[in-house]
Each structure stands twice: as C-alpha cells, then as structure tokens.
C-alpha cells in the first residue's frame, strides 16, 4: 500500500482522516503509521474521529453496543490513573520454560460443604453468572498455602493449579511418606507421567482439547497410595 503520497501531505485534513481509517484497519506502512499516530495523539479532534469510527463499527456489528457519550470522560479518568502507573516493561515474555517444574501446594478441594457451595455457585445460583464465563481462574475459594513456590510472577496467562513439569524431579512420591498432619501434599508431575497421560487422553478423544483437559488434571497424592 503506497503511502508515499500521503506522507507528502501530512497536514491535509482529508489525508489525515484517510490515514486514520487505514490505521484502524491495520493497512498503513510503518512510516505512515508513525505519522498517523502523531496526528492522533496531538489532535483531540482526530482522536474523537477515531472514537466515532469505532462506535460506528461497534453499532454495525451489534446494536446493543450503541453508546459512547461517556467514553471520553471514562478515558480521562483512566488516563489519570494510568499516569500513576509505572510504564509497562518491554521485557521478554514471562512465561517459564515448559520443561521447568514448579512444585506448588495444590488448591485442595475444601471441606465437603464448601464443595457443594462452589458447585451451586458454579451451576448458576444468583449473581455469580461470572462463573459461567471463560477463564474462571480467579475464583478460588482457597488460596494456596504460603508454602507455595511459584517460579514466575502470577500473570493472567498462568492457570491456577497447573504447573509445568521439570524432567529431573523424582517420580511421584508414595504418599506413605506423608501423613495427613503434614504440609499439604505437593503436586508433582514428571515428564514420563505426562506422556502417559497425553497418550491416554488421545484414547479418550478430543485431540484438540486433550492437553487442555490434561492440564486440568493436577496430579495430587492420595493418602491411600501404595500398598
């Protein structure tokens, strides 16, 4: 997409708006993008145009998104708060090496009563329709004990209760070594067991989600393990 002609007239109102439309569609080259950003950020009128374009787009897709009269006020409030935030760090992804295991105390199922309660909530009682939505990871009724060690800072990407596996960790420990009075059982998983689980999940069906359901299945130690 040749934007050279646009660059030559960066101040012409029409060209700026055309750039804006193309910018919204990801259709600008790098130089043009930089120029368009400059305009957008220095000129409130152009920013209002950006806003209007997107309100229009939203309404075209869904009538109940009609609105937007309070959006600028919302943004002003938000920017005031963002000004207090440290700038986002352009660091590398914080996601750990998948070969690394984190040994974490599991979120153990709480007492039976709470379990029932959670499932009642889960099945949609009253206001927690939120439970229904995707990404239900924040809703934990029991935080991991303080002994939990996480190799990475919590991020929205890391699911609760799922840890990657370090290949050099010893295989699953017999629970005979633990008593119920001790520290809550630790979740361990080794690469071999993971492989078997994956192979089993293949047999269960649903390839696209096999590793997903596999990821739910935290290995936990049962007090009854061993004979």
């Amino acid at each position: 997409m040749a934007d050279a002609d646009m660059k030559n007239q960066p101040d012409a109102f029409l060209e700026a708006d055309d750039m804006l439309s193309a910018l919204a569609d990801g259709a600008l080259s790098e130089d043009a993008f930089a120029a368009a950003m400059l305009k957008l950020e220095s000129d409130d009128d152009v920013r209002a145009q950006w806003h209007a374009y997107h309100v229009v787009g939203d309404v075209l897709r869904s009538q109940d998104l009609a609105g937007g009269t309070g959006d600028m006020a919302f943004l002003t409030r938000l920017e005031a708060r963002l000004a207090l935030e440290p700038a986002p760090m352009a660091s590398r992804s914080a996601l750990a090496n998948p070969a690394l295991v984190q040994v974490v105390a599991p979120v153990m199922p709480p007492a039976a009563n709470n379990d029932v309660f959670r499932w009642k909530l889960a099945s949609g009682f009253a206001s927690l329709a939120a439970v229904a939505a995707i990404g239900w990871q924040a809703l934990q009724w029991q935080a991991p004990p303080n002994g939990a060690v996480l190799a990475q800072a919590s991020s929205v990407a890391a699911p609760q209760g799922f840890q990657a596996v370090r290949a050099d960790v010893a295989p699953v420990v017999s629970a005979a070594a633990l008593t119920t009075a001790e520290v809550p059982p630790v979740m361990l998983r080794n690469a071999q067991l993971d492989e078997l689980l994956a192979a089993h999940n293949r047999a269960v069906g649903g390839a696209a989600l096999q590793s997903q359901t596999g990821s739910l299945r935290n290995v936990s130690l049962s007090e009854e393990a061993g004979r």
Partner: protein
Amino acid sequence: MSVFPKKPADDVPARHPLRQRIPMTAKLVALTGRSFARIGAICLLGMFGMAGAGVTQALAAPGDAPVHVPHADANGASIVPVLQRARDAARKKNYVGTFVVMSSSGATASSRIWHLSDGNQQVERMESLSGSPRHVLRRNDQVTTYLPDSHTARTEVRDTYGLFPHLPRVQETALGDYYRVRSKGSERVAGFDTEVFQLSARDGLRYGYRLWVERRTGFAVQLQTLDKTGAVLEQAAFSDLQFDVPLRADKMQQAIGSTAGYKVEKLERVRTSADVEGWLMRNAVPGFEPMDCYKKAADAPPGAVQWIFSDGLATVSLFIEPYGSRPRQEWRSAAGMTQMVGRRVAQDWWLTAMGEVPSQTLEAFAATLERRP
C-alpha cells in the same frame, strides 16, 4: 461472493442491522449461570468412520426432527442414537464456540474452537484461552499442535475422536447393562434449548454422566461426569456457541500465525495387538472391552505398550513396561478426575493404569492382567 470468516474476537455474533429486522440480541453468547457447560473435551470433535457394530438405528441428519427422547428408565440402547447423533453433529456442523472445562478442584481451562465441515472432510482449529498458548489445527485425522512458546509443532494421526469415541465399537445393548438412562427434561444452556439425559452407573466400576443435547441439531452442548453420589467431578461445555458460521480453512490456518522456525515433532506409535505383545485379561472387568493397542515405533525411544479398554463411555489405558532394575514403589494418584495407579504385574512388569473411572476399577484391571504363557 464466496464465504468469508467472521472475526473471532467479537463476543457477539455479527448481524447487520439492515439484514434483519430483529434488534440484535446476545442470545448465543451466554454468560448466564448455567451456560458454562463442560463437555469432557472428548465430546467436541467430530469423529469419522463411525459405523460400528450394533448401531442399527438410522441417524437423523443434523437439523432434522428433534431427537427422540427416551422414556424414563429406558435401557441404555435408546440413548445410543442420541449419542450417535451428537457425534454426528459435532462432525458435520460448522460452528464456532468457547469451550470451558471445570474440575471439582476449581481449576478451569478454556479454549476457542472453530469447526468447518463439508459433511465429510473436517477442518478444526482450537486456540487455548487459558494456560500456555496452544493452537491445534486438525484436518480430518491429521492433527498438528502448535506451541508458540517452545516453537514446536507436534503432529500425529488421530483415530479416536469426539464424544465417547469408543461407543460404536461396543455392543449397543451392553450400555444398558452398565448404565441406567433417564431423561431429565429440558433446560436452557448457552442460549439453546436442550434435552438433558442422565446415565447413572449401575455398578461401582464407572462414573455417571449427565448430557445436555441441543434440540435442533442434537449437538452436545454440556457434559458432566458424576461420581456415585451424583457429585460432579468435571463439567465441560460451550459458554457460547454459534452454528452455521461461514468459515474458511485457509483462514483458520493463517490465524495460527507465523510458524517459521518451528521444530516439528512427530508422534511415533504403531498399532499392535495385546496378543502379539503377550498380554491377556484372565477375566474381563465387567463392561470393559478391549479396543486398541499401541506401542512405540521401532526408531523411537522405548516406552510402554498402551492397551485401551472402554465400556462405550469410559476409557481405561493400561501402560505396561518391563519392571526394570531399579525398585519401584506402588502408588495411586489422580489427575483431575483421571484416576491413576502404578502396580507391579506379572512379576517382571510394571503397569501404569489410568482412566476416568474409580480407582477400584483400575485395581481390578491390575488384578486380572496376565502375561501369556
């Protein structure tokens, strides 16, 4: 004009106001209390080659008359067409949806799924919405899993697919011997009218299920797995779902993004038979029939033989390998609702058994597994 894909980012299906008189509703996007159904991931993906022994009933095409509802206390055979129809619908319909699985431990996982079918061929894409990033692209039985973080692409050929993939291979009447089927009426889930069925285990060797099936298409929208007290072990379902979405296979591929520089790992496994590998079951574990047996390919690192059993609904894998020189300790554990057991068998061998069944079932397998003389 050819068919173009919708942008998956919208959480509401797009309808131009000028195309329809009805004001836009968000019916298909359910964030209601019940809408997060969980479908044991197994349910979703279409299967192919489904004609199986014992399945004699004609199958309604998706979109035909509503599914015949078995009467209360009907035997298991009457549920089979319902399940088959659900398998068909997952295989043949075009759909896009958000899929959420929730374990009784509270852990959840969710993903977005696009499924395209021309009635025979299927293309499917899954993008993980939780956990580590993952894209899966399936074309018929070819599955490739892209892991952006490790720049790896894993490929394999899958022959078990969809809801209760072993169902066609068991005796149709056998299901009724081991499960009691009841109709539980209707419910509204994810914006759809569904029929609810409960399959209760008649013995303590398996779990029960509750299934929500969409009326019009027969598509399974929600599945719960239940223990013998009726408590829910795992729930999975679509929290939002749209049918007949125009999709394009090349767009689905492109949406995965750049895979330049990805390392390709191919799953190496070979079909074999338990017989050839030297294993037999002295007595059958009630309801469970042997399905498939796999071992590692010759040039792959040695591993266990996998012998798969199913009662039509539940699946058990027996992984058998030589005991080895280092002493091992017997153990029992679980990964979510998948029970696991590690046991010494036949003197010189080690069994790791796993399945979505009570652990006593795995113990039963361990007790009756024998080496051929």
